[in-house]
């Protein structure tokens, strides 16, 4: 049994089912990130682990003990809120020591723990300040310090960096990773930012519409998504989805036509039943601009109208509209800006993924040129 086990958990608010049959195992010391769009149930799941919400059905166990009926404070979890939730009338020291004081811990222990946490988070100089006198990053550190002081078995972070500016967010992300390395405690982190999730997670849990879509190492999810949602959600810029029509099948080879309105390709896959149309998933880095008009060896050829170009310095992303109106993004070098109205693309079909109309991944598909 894993350290933290979520078994068949559902949660309903009235007639609204927020979580539907969620099961997940988390090992001790793992850094797990729940990621998904707003309203996917990730925060609710976090709140249920800490005990602020009760599951409608199913069980949650920590360290082998079912905690469904255990008081939040006694579960051994500590949570860092998006709003920091610092007590404005207390100093940093009082904020960090609040939990220990409520538990009636001896003064010497309180001082020792707070000073230790303050040293880890470089807060020693700020212990006498009130939250109003702190910057956003400092407040965030105090909120983390308040969690550390309790020496929990599981740290829970509810979108803790979303109130910070971009630069500080990157810095705090690095600090969180360092903190995890140093403490070795299980951490569960909720975010809607997939870049944050990719950079932090040992295990990334993608959620959508109250269900776990896929859980695994970030790069596994990036390379090998289970469905169209995960494929589209993980990665920035997001994966291109090209509609295609099944033109025929030759044993293990599926012939596709009308890709983006005009292209044709063959992909190694078995002919699915009752399916006429599929979608090809290709990441921007697997789409190439080709100079001239003919891609080599008659590979997948797509022609598109250049809509705009995002220049990021080392590289640029070109946004194009294909013949059928599908918008695709292709990674290009610095000279992409010189592009004129139309451009020709070719795709790296070995990296292409196939999705059936219901969004499921059609596995075992690798492409060859038509």
């Amino acid at each position, binding site marked *: 049994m894993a350290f933290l086990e979520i078994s068949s958990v559902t949660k309903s608010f009235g007639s609204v089912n927020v979580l539907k049959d969620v099961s997940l195992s988390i090992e001790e010391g793992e850094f797990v990130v729940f990621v998904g769009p707003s309203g996917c149930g990730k925060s609710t799941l976090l709140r249920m682990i*800490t*005990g602020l919400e009760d599951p409608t059905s199913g069980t949650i166990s920590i360290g082998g003990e079912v905690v469904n009926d255990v008081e939040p404070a006694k579960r051994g979890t500590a*949570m860092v809120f998006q*709003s920091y*939730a610092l*007590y*404005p*009338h207390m100093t940093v020291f009082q904020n960090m020591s*609040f939990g220990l004081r*409520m538990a009636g811990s001896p003064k010497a222990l309180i001082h020792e723990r707070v000073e230790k946490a303050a040293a880890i988070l470089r807060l020693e100089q700020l212990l006498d300040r009130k939250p109003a006198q702190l910057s956003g990053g400092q407040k965030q550190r105090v909120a983390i310090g308040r969690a550390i002081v309790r020496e929990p078995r599981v740290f829970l972070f509810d979108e803790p960096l979303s109130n910070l500016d971009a630069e500080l967010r990157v810095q705090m992300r690095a600090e969180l990773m360092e903190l995890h390395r140093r403490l070795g405690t299980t951490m569960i982190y909720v975010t809607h930012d997939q870049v944050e999730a990719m950079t932090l997670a040992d295990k990334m849990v993608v959620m959508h519409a109250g269900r776990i879509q896929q859980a695994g190492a970030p790069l596994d999810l990036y390379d090998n998504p289970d469905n169209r949602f995960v494929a589209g959600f993980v990665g920035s810029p997001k994966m291109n989805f090209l509609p295609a029509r099944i033109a025929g099948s030759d044993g293990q080879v599926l012939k596709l036509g009308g890709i983006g309105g005009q292209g044709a390709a063959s992909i190694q896959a078995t002919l699915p039943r009752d399916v006429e149309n599929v979608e090809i998933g290709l990441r921007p880095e697997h789409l190439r601009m080709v100079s001239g008009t003919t891609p080599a060896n008659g590979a997948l050829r797509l022609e598109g109208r250049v809509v705009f170009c995002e220049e990021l310095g080392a590289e640029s992303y070109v946004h194009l509209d294909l013949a059928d109106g599908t918008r695709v993004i292709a990674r290009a070098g610095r000279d992409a800006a010189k592009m004129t109205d139309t451009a020709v693309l070719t795709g790296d079909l070995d990296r292409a993924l196939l999705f059936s109309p219901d969004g499921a991944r059609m596995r075992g598909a690798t492409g060859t040129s038509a």
Partner: protein
Amino acid sequence: MTAPSRPRLTVWTVLKWALAILVAIIAVFPVWWMINVVFSLPGEPVSINPRLWPTSIAAGIEKIQMIFAETGYLRAYGVSLLYAALTIFGVLLIGSLAAFEFALFEFRGKRVLFAVIMLSLMVPTAVTIIPTYLLTSSLGWLNTMQGLVVPGLASAFGLFMLVQFMGAIPRDMIEAARLDGASHFQIYWHVALPLCRNALVTLAILTFMQTWGNYMWPLIVATRPEMYTVGQVVGLFNAPLSHQTVDVVMTANLLAAIPPLLFFLIFQRKIVEGIAMSGTKG
């Protein structure tokens, strides 16, 4: 208030100041007249040739000494202060406990209960005073401190005001305290109460003003001289058959007005802050 950025004197500025000064005079004049009457020789301020300034400090002091020495004024002061202090304490305690529940937690019948309490604000005191008197009387609380204090403890207005403040406390903060292991009461005591301190101070001042100036309820429930409040004693001085000259009556009035005046002068900033901030606590 915006600071005037233009040094130029406009008609509008002059009118504004004239109006403000006029209002100030209207507000201050009765108090000043009271002081004038007290600290003058008897009859002088109301003579054919009245003066607008005090003429004899000694005469005033003599009248104050006479009132303290010859009437039960000092005892009434004690009764009134205790009455006000206990009422403030009770109103704050009961109001804040109830507001904590109403503002931050869900429970069955919450909306209906709150609506009923708010409806009670619309019932005039005159309607409830007789049933309240009968109840107090049947409890055997006539001429007792609890008879004075207890019926005034449940303040719908106080509850309303504190609910506005506590409702603005972020839920995250309450949940953080719960995760920190604070009990329900500890959350109230360590988190909710300190966060609405300004509202509590405002409510305390308003309750003091109301209790100190309350005339009708003490008059009905405390009929024995030893339980008279300041209001009642001043009432005796003002009574048609009291045989007191106007300057002595004014002295009694002035003495009664001093505590609320002091209270207001000390806390006026808090009062304004509290009223201005209600519902926008951050």
